[in-house]
């Protein structure tokens, strides 16, 4: 399994699957954001994912992973809007600056790509773990990927570990009080509600585990 490469078309399929998953869950995201935010996360994400689908269904936007991720970032920034647009945009913009092999990444590079995205996100949004934000799903997922990679695990195991960690992180947001974002205005009343941002971020890892481990590359 070592040396297994993930191609740009697999990344494209991953993001198309992600867009579908978010759109299917628009109502769920709206419900979560109605409880502790301003009820716009579902609508904003659906609009952005629609734009992302349009962009990805055009001809391959680029044959370089860096340029591809950058175009994903710009699409999310303009399509999602609100606070989530700039935050997801930053995640992909920073991921775009991580080293690749041009048209593909190996597992270590994929892990590093997520790490770059996470670091950018923390720098921009100034949120830490346990602030009840998307960081609570993404940070444990990236850390789980790094640990599995260090233990020489396969892509399937690394991505499964990321999905599981992101899921636990998302569920953990139910128990904690919001320190960032609009939910923080609710103080202790935010406890008992799952964070919508952590939920949409979890889908990144859920769909990555489903799509990026398929070795056949039909395109």
């Amino acid at each position, binding site marked *: 399994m070592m040396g297994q490469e993930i191609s740009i078309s697999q990344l494209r399929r991953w993001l198309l699957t992600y867009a579908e998953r978010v759109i299917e869950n628009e109502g769920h995201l709206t419900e979560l954001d109605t409880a502790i935010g301003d009820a716009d996360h579902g609508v904003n994400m659906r609009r952005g994912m629609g734009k992302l689908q349009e962009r990805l269904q055009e001809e391959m936007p680029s044959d370089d992973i860096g340029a591809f991720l*950058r175009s994903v970032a*710009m699409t999310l*920034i*303009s399509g999602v*809007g609100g*606070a989530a*647009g*700039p*935050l997801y*945009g*930053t995640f992909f*913009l920073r991921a775009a600056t991580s080293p690749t092999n041009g048209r593909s990444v190996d597992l270590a590079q994929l892990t590093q790509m997520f790490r770059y995205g996470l670091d950018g996100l923390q720098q*921009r*949004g100034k949120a830490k773990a346990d602030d009840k934000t998307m960081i609570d799903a993404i940070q444990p997922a990236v850390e789980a990927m790094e640990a599995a990679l260090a233990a020489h695990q396969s892509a399937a195991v690394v991505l499964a570990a990321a999905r599981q960690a992101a899921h636990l992180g998302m569920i953990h947001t139910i128990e904690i009080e919001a320190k960032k974002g609009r939910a923080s205005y609710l103080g202790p009343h935010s406890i008992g509600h799952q964070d919508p941002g952590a939920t949409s971020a979890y889908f990144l890892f859920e769909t990555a585990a489903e799509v990026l481990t398929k070795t056949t590359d039909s395109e």
Partner: protein
Amino acid sequence: MQCLTSNPGSAITHSLRGMALCHPDTIQVHFDPDYVERTAPAPAGKVAVISGSGSGHEPLPTGYVGLGMLDAACPGPIFTSPSPVQLLAAVHSVNRGGGVLFIVKNYAGGVLNTDLTIEIATQEGIEARAVLVNDDVSISDVANRRGLGAATLACKIAGAAAEAGYSLKDVVEVTRRAVDASRSMGVGTNLYTLPRNGSGDGLADDSIELGVGIHGEPGEVRSVRNGMPEIVSLLVQPILDDLPYSADEQVLLLISGMGGTPPLELYLLSEATHDILAAHRIQVGRQLVGNYVTSLGRGGYTITLMRLDDELLDLWDAPVHTPALHW
């Protein structure tokens, strides 16, 4: 407010069109993404000064576009930061190769969107910087202070410095100095209607709200017995205490209404402010009284003092030709 309340999005579009129709020689408006830029392009090499802001604070920022002030302004939805897409479109339109400076009021959304815009512009090879405006002394933690009247002053100082041929580094330096030398405090005299939230409850006749923000953020309700002198003392004393202005220093005084206070009342405020500054032997070197940073139709006002030095004075006096400021 009827039109704004029923359809805030289209009200902004029509208002921008109406503004451009009033000032065709000074500004032109672009839509989707929305930004306002100068009609006459600035010369090559000049630092471009851009300010974005949620709508509802007019004339900030769109009324400050023109010679000697902003090259472009990006109006967001009501009380909501403009997006990086708007800010980047403005950058691409007004960058003349001298770099770009953003004047940003210190609110989470504006800072987030501007930082991201700067990151993208930098990746495109455009040099871009930001100066944060945080002059509101009602918040003790300086890093969290909101931007109020000093936003108008920062736009004027940065615009004049850029027009005078300062480098980006030097425009940033002098604008930061202007912000550091400025302090503000706001008072609300009524509670008002927000397009999203409907009407608030009224304040009692003898009460004010001290330290209000310009997006309906509440302040501390105080009852006032001795009219304007007491209100002004509540406003000015924290400003004087925060940046120790000393006797015989020269300041710029900005009194800005929030949109629902009549000019008659602003001049009442002016008289009481002059009295208290005279009692502290602080000279009012320059002044501006009117609606400069508003909060839709809220009753209330902000007082801003900027300590002047020779350079800031020259930059303040430099010619300006915008819809809201001209001399």
